[in-house]
């Protein structure tokens, strides 16, 4: 659905995005992750041709996305970038009518979009009286009204309470189930890792990882934990493997299978009792922290 090659954006001396090769398969929920300021929004703006790339090219639905072609392609794309769009002095219904008039849509489409985000009971309120969650939902309804093949959502869960986040998750899964390709960004892995089928992780404008959840987990080696009645002595004996005390256990980061065998052999040779050796359970969050150098998620 989306491919980019060597995509980059520079403002003066500041590189915001560099050498980005995005691959967003059709029909997936693509979780676009990265700490704040990592270039996610700029990338999404380039995908919509709101911002012109400094380098590289973008293809959407097999066609180049440029200023000359954008209007035609945008007819198949719904988007919510940065803060939700809306005219605060108008009601929700009037905002939807505005989209209907602008895009020459029939009433059925806007009604379906509003029902999808479950906003039908709040349409006669002015948007200035909406909660942030309701504004986000209205913004998504406005993006959905054209029944797009591709939906690009920039941090749609920002500022939402847990119930609101769960609702967005359900919505994304439902849209993907209906055949819409969804690209959704977040700086919080927990918000989208269960919904996304493909993940792209951005750090300082560069792609750190792109692939499935399982591929991401496989990228990182979990710490080895050694249970011993003499953790103090065991830690001192394995200092050259960067061991440190972790409660009653000894923790050894970045150790492969051979390294683990060597450490155990060394401890046994030094007559330290080893009661257990195991790999720590690792969350996606830990992997992300590894990839981004501890910034975010």
């Amino acid at each position, binding site marked *: 659905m989306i491919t980019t090659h060597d995509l980059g954006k520079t403002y003066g001396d500041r590189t915001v995005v560099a050498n980005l090769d995005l691959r967003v398969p059709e029909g997936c929920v693509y979780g676009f992750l990265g700490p704040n300021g990592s270039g996610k929004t700029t990338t999404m*703006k380039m995908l*919509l041709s*709101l*911002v*012109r790339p400094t380098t590289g090219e973008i293809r959407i639905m097999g066609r180049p996305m440029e*200023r000359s072609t954008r*209007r*035609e392609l*945008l*007819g198949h*794309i719904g*988007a*919510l*970038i*940065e*803060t*939700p*769009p*809306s*005219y*605060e*002095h*108008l009601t929700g219904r*009037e905002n939807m*009518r*505005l989209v209907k*008039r*602008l*895009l*020459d849509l029939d009433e059925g489409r806007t009604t379906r979009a509003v029902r999808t985000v479950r906003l039908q009971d709040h349409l006669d309120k002015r948007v200035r009286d909406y909660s942030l969650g309701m504004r986000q939902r209205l*913004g998504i309804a*406005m993006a959905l009204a*054209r029944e797009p093949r591709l939906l690009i959502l920039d941090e749609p869960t920002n500022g939402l309470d847990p119930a609101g986040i769960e609702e967005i998750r359900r919505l994304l899964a439902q849209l993907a189930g209906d055949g819409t390709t969804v690209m959704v960004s977040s700086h919080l892995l927990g918000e989208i890792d269960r919904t996304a089928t493909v993940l792209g992780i951005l750090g300082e404008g560069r792609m750190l990882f792109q692939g499935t959840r399982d591929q991401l987990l496989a990228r990182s080696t979990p710490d080895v934990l050694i249970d011993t009645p003499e953790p103090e002595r065991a830690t001192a004996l394995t200092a050259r493997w960067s061991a440190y005390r972790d409660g009653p256990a000894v923790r050894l980061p970045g150790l492969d299978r051979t390294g683990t065998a060597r450490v155990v052999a060394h401890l046994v040779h030094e007559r330290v009792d080893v009661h257990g050796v195991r790999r720590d359970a690792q969350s996606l969050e830990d992997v992300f922290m590894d990839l981004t150098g501890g910034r975010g998620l």
Partner: protein
Amino acid sequence: MGSVRAEFLKLRRSMSWVVVVLLPLTAVVAGAVNTVVAGEPLEDHWHTLWLRAVVFYGLFPLVLGVAVLASLVWRVEHRGGNWNALMGRQVSSLHVVVGKTAVLAALAAAMQAVLVVGIVVVGKLVFALPGTLPPEYFLVSAVIVLACLPVAAFQSGLSMLMRSFAAPIAVALLASAAGMLLWMTRIEALALLLPHGLVGRATQMGTGMLADSGTVTAGAVTSVVVIALGLTAVVTLGTAAVLDRRDIR
């Protein structure tokens, strides 16, 4: 034109209507008060009342009013994610720009209607003038509305490019002053080509003030209308081209 219809929907509960009603009424009231306080009778009846209400209004307040309206109609786009949404749809830049200019033209027409109604009411109720406003002033009113188009297009472009509400209005004030100076120094060709000066010419029509002969001639009407339409087309196309090349940061 969906974009034009959408723009009209945005006018609901807008502050624009306050400007549309209050500004021309203030001009009419100022003209009437001036007449009463100075004790100068309306020697030429409707003609004198029109002259006292409209000529100054055309030199400054009308242009400033259009500038305020332009800032108001663009202000909503500078809020939240509206720019991203506006440019992230398949609606062309030209349609976006034309939609805004069309709304401003409608508001300018509404202002002129309020001005005319105000003059008629004051003429009848305050000064008990005989008959009603001569038909030539309805023609002049139509010319004034058309002359507002290039100002609307120009101010719309400025308000599109500037997030500031006041900066485009300050530009309008300076351009109005420039237009007035050009009329006073009789550099008419340049005054006609400056959108803000063109409005001044339209409001002088039939009054005998500054560059006007005192009668509404076909030549004067035609030149103002042709220049107005030409300038509007140039400014609108130019603004759309700028918008099309612009990044939304």
